[in-house]
């Protein structure tokens, strides 16, 4: 069977070779290993050897001609053999052997040519488009990136300030979590880098707040796609909430303590109460009463910060946070400690109704010495509340949960409720708060003691 001698890879980098010399002519016999030609590569003149014996049937590429790698140079076979198949479309001339290259079974070449064809068509496509052309013109291999930077910073006014703020990765993460705007924080690290410490000690002054609001207001007012948002006017109530709670959170050093309370007996007692005619006591009423008693026993908690003095209140007035449409209100149950469960229950019910109907009088909302916020009915297990100034503390009440508890070495169903006390550290210390919570717990765990 006739064999095609194709242009061998004679150097790592050659893509074509020029036939420098044929050592054989058509009709000569060759053996395996004979040097049949010399080929000029990109590096040197190299020998081309025959790897199979036979007769030279055809010299395809003449001396001086360039043949691509894998292109046909000659055909060796048995004398008289029909080689027309092998010559098909290739009647001599190295240059014309180009198309043959694609027919070789060399996968690498195939994929290469495939790639280049694809590239060609892509180029063609892009030329049709103006935008593509423009991009080409603007693209500068050296300054491309710089251009990009300019573009992005110009189109992203808001992000700019934030992105140029030097901040440690940790501080950036903390700020994001706490919703603190980095541009409001002053960095204490090298070159003004904002670090963990700065976030921890961050307090927005009202001035700062106003400042921070101004640009964002501007940004919101910017004419862009109005269907993306709706501007809601800020109600008077919201303004008050924003101001008072903002002030409280950022000026009163809050700390938080949580205690888990066994509510088994409270549930039993409530059941007993509610079996009586015309009596309706809620858990909330019991918590309000318990707080009032606890406040009486822990007067340090029943205080207010007045700047130059701490005022200890002689009366206990517990406020109860009530959710209304526009926000929340905190009507006050006066002299709470002196009232019974049902009295408290009735009063809270009445105040809450008034609150929802917007009929609360200002004096009904003033003068509290302590506040309770209860989200237990929403299934919230535990949360922290912002102190209602001028109170020293606020109690956040969670839901009563069914939990497995160990009693006498056995796991039995239990009822637990978590309450979290937020305290103003200027007035109340950790141990004081803890003592208050302990009192509260023992009252709720032995509800009858409240009646004594």
């Amino acid at each position, binding site marked *: 069977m006739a064999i095609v001698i194709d242009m061998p890879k004679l150097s790592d980098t050659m893509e074509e070779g020029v036939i420098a010399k044929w050592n054989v002519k058509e009709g000569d016999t060759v053996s395996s290993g004979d040097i049949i030609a010399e080929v000029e590569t990109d590096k040197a003149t190299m020998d081309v050897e025959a790897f199979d014996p036979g007769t030279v049937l055809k010299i395809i590429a003449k001396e001086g001609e360039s043949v691509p790698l894998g292109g046909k140079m000659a055909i060796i076979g048995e004398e008289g053999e029909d080689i027309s198949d092998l010559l098909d479309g290739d009647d001599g001339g190295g240059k014309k052997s180009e198309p043959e290259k694609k027919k070789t079974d060399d996968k690498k070449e195939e994929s290469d040519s495939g790639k280049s064809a694809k590239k060609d068509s892509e180029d063609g496509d892009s030329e049709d488009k103006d935008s593509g052309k423009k991009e080409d013109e603007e693209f500068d291999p050296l300054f491309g990136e710089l251009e990009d930077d300019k573009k992005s910073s110009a189109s992203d006014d808001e992000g700019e300030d934030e992105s140029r703020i030097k901040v*440690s*990765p*940790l*501080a*950036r*993460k903390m700020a994001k979590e706490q919703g603190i705007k980095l541009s409001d924080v002053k960095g*204490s*690290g*090298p070159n003004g880098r904002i*670090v*963990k*410490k700065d976030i921890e000690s961050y307090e927005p002054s009202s001035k700062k707040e106003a400042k921070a609001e101004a640009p964002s207001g501007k940004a919101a007012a910017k004419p862009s796609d109005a269907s993306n948002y709706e501007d809601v006017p800020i109600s008077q109530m919201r303004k008050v909430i924003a101001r008072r709670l903002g002030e409280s959170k950022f000026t009163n050093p809050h700390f938080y303590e949580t205690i888990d309370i066994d509510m088994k007996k409270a549930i039993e007692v409530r059941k007993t109460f509610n079996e009586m005619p015309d009596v309706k006591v809620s858990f909330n009423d019991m918590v309000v009463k318990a707080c009032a008693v606890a406040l009486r026993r822990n007067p340090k908690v029943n205080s207010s910060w007045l700047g130059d003095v701490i005022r200890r209140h002689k009366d206990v007035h517990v406020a109860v946070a009530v959710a209304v449409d526009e926000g929340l209100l905190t009507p006050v149950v006066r002299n709470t400690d002196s009232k019974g469960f049902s009295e408290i229950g009735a009063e809270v019910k009445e105040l809450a109704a008034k609150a929802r109907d917007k009929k609360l009088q200002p004096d009904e909302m003033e003068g509290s010495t302590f506040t309770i916020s209860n989200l237990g009915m929403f299934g919230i297990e535990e949360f922290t509340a912002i102190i209602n100034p001028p109170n020293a503390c606020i109690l956040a009440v969670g839901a009563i949960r069914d939990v497995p508890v160990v009693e006498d070495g056995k796991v039995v169903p239990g009822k637990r409720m978590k309450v979290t006390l937020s305290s103003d550290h200027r007035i109340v210390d950790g141990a004081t708060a803890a003592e208050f919570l302990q009192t509260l717990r023992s009252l709720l765990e032995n509800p009858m003691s409240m009646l004594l």
Partner: protein
Amino acid sequence: MSEKQFREAIREAMVEEMRKDDTIILMGEEVAEYNGAYKVSQNMLDEFGGKRVIDTPISELGFSGIGVGAAMNGLRPIIEFMTFNFAVVGMDQIINNAAKIRYMSGGQLKIPIVFRGPNASAGQLGATHSVAFESLYAHIPGLKVVYASEPYDAKGLLKTAIRDDDPVIFLESEQMYGLKQEIPDEEYTIPFGKGKIKREGDDVTIVAHGKMYHVAKKAAEELAKDGVEAEIIDPRSMKPFDFEMVIESIKKTNRCVIVDESHPFAGMAAEIGFIIQRDAFDYLDAPVQRVTVPDAPAPFAKNLFDLWLPDAKQVIDAVNTVTYRN
């Protein structure tokens, strides 16, 4: 428990393993009749004889290569270099042969060999005798690299090294050979890739291995007087490296200083620092700092040498930088 010197700990590791496995041999300059240049192999010739404790000519390339060949063919050689500064002339055997032959052969053989000896500087010995090589060897796939800082670690890690079927670079220090520590009388080993928190603290993580651990320890003691509690992690093996322990510590401290006796450029500290920035990015409150010898050879003059070698003050400075106390 009994108090042992670093050199004794290493010797015990070798002796105990050699008693159990007679394919283990020790080869190196002055290891046999001289009893070891640093007395590490003292009396080993007496116990094991010249067939297993072998004095070599000063031919690091030659005996490293013979060791690799013997390891290919069933022995478990321990090659002692009088210092790793001399191993440089035999490095081709370690980097091209020991580290690669298993891979190139498609796993047809294993090369259980330990190259051990003192590493890095040991006072005013000049530029050629003062190089710390852990970064260089750790760069090469196929090599495990250990640099212990205390006798307890050294013994447990060397036993692991001797039992390992891959080549291990086991680095010691002339200046630590006399270091004493209580170590258990009973058998123990320490796995590679498991660091140790040698001092707990919340304010900064200091990663320090080998001789530099002792520098870090001194710095931490000073810092404590100032109210800064440093957590010191001794990774113990350079490769594999206990990145997890470092990352977890940084999650707590938010800051890290790496103390490395290598030169700074492309050194261990650079690699550790890279992993930290990637895997602990959101926990960092300050850029990671490193304390290394400078990008200059070791000078001879006392004043220059003292400038060159990392000391506690440099570590304290770095801690102050990452804790924003500067």
